[in-house]
């Protein structure tokens, strides 16, 4: 039997139909665009078992001495690295949850928290020097976000960053992304624009920023856009002086949102923003280097819960399957990629003592050698924090109970 040309036409149509049907399935598509770089190794120095302390940040306050701050109650613990001993200094004055630190001039430390409405300058003994009241945000009210200190003592704040459930601005509300607050505490300038992505919640999901500075240049790194911007002052006004776009290793469906309302609950509106940034976290070292945790592999995790299916049109979410660390100059030059301990970290902190701190999946913190600097002190390889993060350490948090990984 001779093969008729119409048969091949039918089979082509069949294949096309199958492809279209697959395309109509609900799982968002992820495509890989660039082959991964060669990963270098990080040299492990120590592991910190945080016990029940759950620090939200760590900062080097002197050679070989760190502060860790409890994420729930803002309790400050001072850790001596060579001996591995920790002691409680007290609580951060004025607020509690998720405090973060930045180095300031003359050994001072800037503390901020998204759960607070003030920033605070602290002395190196932990005492409060003064507070900074940021400008009232047009749709968030008093709001604080990632901050950095410039060479003249001015502070840059990104109040929208890492607030995925904050409604997007309305056209009449303005859309400034960054504020500059002068050393005298008065707001001097706004910078950037919140991306207009439509929807009710989408904009702020893409406004994830990390801030840093070198000299009088302000550095901003967009986690979702994989973009490094540099702002330099011209006649006392900051203007963008350069940008570097980092390569992207995957392309996922653009961010979208799904909002459902449980009317019987006070916080009944249940919005979900489906978005996976190219970088999960980043930090700038004081020499301007950018250290960024890249979401290297991502996949869509479908949620088959009947309630999730009933509430949301597309139940599930993005999951990062692997990460690596990228280090580059403040211009985005000379990038190098490093394999993370356990191929994973959720937060990175750079220090001036030649060590990087990585929050691992099991709740511990890995201390690794900074590839760009030699460690400035010895460190005990196994450190255990016995302190508890509580307003007053009560008896039931005395550390005698068992602890399983969260």
């Amino acid at each position: 039997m001779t093969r008729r040309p119409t048969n091949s036409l039918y089979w082509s149509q069949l294949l096309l139909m199958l492809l279209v049907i697959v395309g109509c399935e609900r799982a968002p598509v992820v495509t890989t665009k660039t082959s991964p770089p060669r990963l270098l190794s990080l040299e492990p120095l120590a592991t910190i078992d945080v016990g029940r302390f759950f620090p939200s940040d760590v900062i080097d306050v002197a050679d070989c001495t760190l502060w860790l701050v409890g994420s729930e109650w803002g309790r400050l613990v001072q850790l001596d690295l060579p001996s591995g001993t920790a002691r409680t200094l007290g609580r951060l004055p004025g607020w509690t949850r998720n405090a973060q630190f930045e180095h300031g001039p003359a050994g001072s430390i800037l503390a901020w928290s998204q759960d607070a409405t003030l920033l605070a300058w602290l002395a190196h003994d932990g005492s409060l020097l003064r507070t900074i009241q940021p400008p009232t945000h047009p749709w968030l009210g008093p709001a604080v976000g990632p901050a950095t200190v410039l060479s003249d003592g001015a502070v840059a704040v990104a109040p929208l960053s890492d607030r995925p459930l904050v409604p997007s601005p309305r056209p009449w509300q303005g859309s400034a992304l960054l504020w500059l607050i002068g050393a005298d505490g008065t707001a001097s300038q706004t910078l950037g624009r919140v991306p207009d992505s439509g929807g009710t919640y989408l904009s702020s999901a893409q406004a994830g920023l990390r801030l840093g500075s070198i000299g009088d240049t302000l550095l901003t790194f967009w986690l979702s856009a994989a973009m490094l911007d540099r702002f330099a002052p011209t006649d006392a006004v900051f203007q963008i002086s350069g940008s570097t776009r980092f390569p992207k290793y995957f392309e996922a469906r653009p961010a979208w949102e799904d909002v459902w309302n449980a009317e019987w609950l006070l916080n009944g509106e249940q919005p979900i923003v489906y978005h996976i940034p190219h970088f999960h976290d980043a930090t700038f070292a004081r020499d301007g280097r950018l250290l960024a945790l890249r979401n290297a592999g991502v996949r869509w995790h479908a949620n088959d819960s009947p309630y999730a299916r009933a509430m949301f049109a597309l139940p599930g979410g993005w999951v990062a399957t692997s990460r690596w660390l990228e280090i580059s100059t403040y211009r985005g030059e000379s990038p190098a990629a490093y394999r993370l301990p356990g191929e994973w970290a959720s937060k990175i902190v750079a220090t001036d003592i030649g060590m990087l701190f990585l929050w691992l999946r099991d709740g511990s913190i890995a201390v690794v050698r900074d590839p760009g600097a030699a460690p400035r002190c010895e460190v005990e390889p196994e450190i255990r924090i016995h302190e508890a993060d509580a307003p007053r350490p009560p008896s039931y948090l005395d550390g005698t109970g068992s602890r399983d990984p969260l």
Partner: protein
Amino acid sequence: MRPSHLSNFVVFGLGLLLLGQLWYRPGRDETSLPEGLYPGMPVPELDVRRLAGSSQVSLGHLVGDVTACTLLVIVRPLCPTCARMRVTWPSRFAAWADSVAAQIQPVWLSVGGHDALEAFVTGYRLQEAGITLVSVPEGFTSATYDALGVLGTPTLYLVRPDGTVVAGLIGDRLPPVALAAEACL
């Protein structure tokens, strides 16, 4: 049937499937959603078992036959937020209750069974912190989820001494102090 007819049939069928996919937008099935506990509704009469002493008690009796308000927190042993709350919640609740300045009894109800609850809290001294721990002996069924309006954990309800709901919340949050003070003082 000749191959070309078979192909015709298959392509026609797939075409119908494609049209169906395009017409049907998969998603919400409103009928399967629970109706939760609206303000003013009584907490349902569920049989729960206390971890301490393993005695059986009605949930309505536990929260509605008392002189104080109740903060009923529904937790799931495998939920990461709930796991962390074992450490952070008691002190935060105590500070919140101080702000409310009213007597409020905290009750944690686990969606897992009795054994799962016991494993979940062992070593965390929650009972010493004044929290009453209870579970539905065999674990939650879909009817239990529906009755309590649990779409995710933790879900909590502030309950008046007469057993009626003041307000519900989802997530690791506490009700507004002013609301609790008005209902419980």
